[in-house]
């Protein structure tokens, strides 16, 4: 008997799609890929794919905020980006902090992409990892956001530990009280020189 995984679902539905470079299922809170199939062995391209996941997560969050300002139950639909040679298609799983991303050549048929994305959304949904506790995931999302956008990303965790006065291990595990979460939010905003961050704090 074959055990179905998210990767096998992705593999099943991308088979035979011309011009596909990579497909991934990522997490909106931090951009991390939970399943990925890429037709590349190049380290640079691997890093670019990671950045693409981060970019998609930011884009979905920004679009969701815009949609929700119109109506609280609205979510972002298909998001498209790319260059003259490449195309990125992103679609979030409904009512879930996960998304599907396809990176293809710009010649790839959009309808074919759309059908395969829909199939992954349907077959992949039961296989998505469980959503973490809100406080934990917010803390991790804040740290992950800082690592993406602050200078010297390799030392962001140390800097945040020093700025907040909180132990580095606790910060990285994300097990913080509401008060500590507010301190962390302020520290990340300060590190980036921003008043607000695109990460919602738990109510």
């Amino acid at each position, binding site marked *: 008997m074959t055990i179905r995984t998210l990767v096998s679902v992705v593999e099943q539905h991308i088979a035979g799609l011309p011009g596909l470079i990579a497909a991934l299922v990522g997490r909106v809170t931090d951009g991390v890929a939970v399943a990925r199939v890429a037709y590349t062995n190049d380290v640079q391209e691997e890093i670019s794919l990671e950045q693409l996941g981060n970019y998609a997560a930011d884009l979905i969050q920004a679009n969701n905020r815009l949609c929700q300002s119109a109506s609280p139950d609205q979510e972002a639909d298909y998001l498209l980006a790319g260059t003259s040679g490449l195309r990125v298609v992103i679609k979030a799983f409904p009512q879930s902090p996960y998304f599907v991303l396809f990176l293809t050549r710009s010649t790839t048929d959009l309808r074919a992409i759309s059908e395969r994305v829909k199939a992954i959304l349907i077959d992949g949904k039961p296989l998505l990892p469980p959503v973490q506790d809100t406080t934990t995931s917010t803390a991790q999302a804040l740290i992950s956001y800082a690592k993406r956008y602050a200078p*010297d990303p390799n*030392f962001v965790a140390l800097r945040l530990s*020093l*700025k907040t006065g909180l132990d580095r291990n606790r910060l990285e595990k994300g097990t913080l009280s509401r008060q500590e979460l507010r301190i962390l939010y302020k520290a990340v905003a300060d590190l*980036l020189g921003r008043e607000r961050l695109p990460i919602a704090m738990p109510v």
Partner: protein
Amino acid sequence: MLEHLHLDRERKLISLFGEPVIFHCHHYNLFLQQTIEDPDWIDGVGILRTAAQEIFYSLLYGAFKALGVQETQERLAVAAQIFSFLGFGRLAFEVTPSGGEVQLTHSHYAEGWLSKYGEQVSRTRPIDHLAVGYVAAALDATFGELGSYAAEETECMAVTRKDHCVIQATRLPKPQSLTPSPGMGKLIEQPTQFPQPVTAVDYDAVNEALWGLPLAGDERGQIRAFNVLLTRMPANYYNRIQYRFLQELKAVQAELMGVGEALIRESGHVCVFYTFGNIMESVEWETLVGPMLEKDTDWIHGGYAVASSLGWGRWQALEVVSGESCRVAIDGNYEANYFLASYPRAEDPACYFAQGAVPALMNLVYSGNIQQKPVLDQVFYNRLFQRGGLFRGKETKAREQGDPWCEFYAARVSGTESLRV
């Protein structure tokens, strides 16, 4: 001002009016400063300003005495001249004995910050803590005594993105009690005779050539060399800020000492990576050190020959195993000279800059392949860390703990492993 530099060839130290001065770049200065100003729960900015006021007061007091300058305007002109000579920018004093306004242009910290982080981050707080302390020190030395003045940066170009900063100075009703610099600190009596290193690099020849370079602030008060903004900083400013900062951490939240130490070490890593990386890609390196480079290990020796030309003391690689490890001695390191003059014997090795610098040079040569002249930018630096398997270092002998010299060992370790010496 170059003529006033005093060179101690034996100890490989450089001083200006009795204060040890050393070269460091804007990458190091910014990283170290940010580490100290980051925690809101201690007065990091106060540590930076006060240290600048104390150390520069000693330097300016020495300068006015040595140059015999008595008149107010003459003293302020010398203070501005020294500030520019050291690479911090240009100061224009509009002051009286009660205080006044000082305009700062081409600020090392502000322009350095804008060039390094300006496109990525917005800054909301002033950055010129050193200049603020310097202005207070200049007025102290001109009109009063140490601690007579306080200063504040009211406009900072790193925040406003204009072309200048403004610092306001006021005379205090009563001088605050501050501690002057320990000057050259506790020097080594005699240089230690280390075994002759196995290398084609002639350390003394590199020293002499680099000591001859006229590295001084230009008309903007900046030292632009080797693709970085250099400063000829009083060593005791770095020493004072790093040790006071760690003392504060220990007093307020001792469990975060390790984080503070790690970040100070990292500033040393950043410094060597950018400054030495750029030096090793320069024409000067090619001309001067290039002909001595026969093996890859010579690049490490060449690096230490350069290090001991910067006023940091006598740095020498004792043993370099290609791609694997190195053992480095520092005889009369500037950190230990200060430490021993200011504190009792250290409980733990305390030459933090060197602890970061030694593995950094191995990373530059054996992880960053500097021989291939990569583009030394933040992306390259970040990737180096993401790849893992970097060199880490340890201070294995510490003069500040009673050893005759300081010694460091660096080797490649995996992410979870700790360094075995």
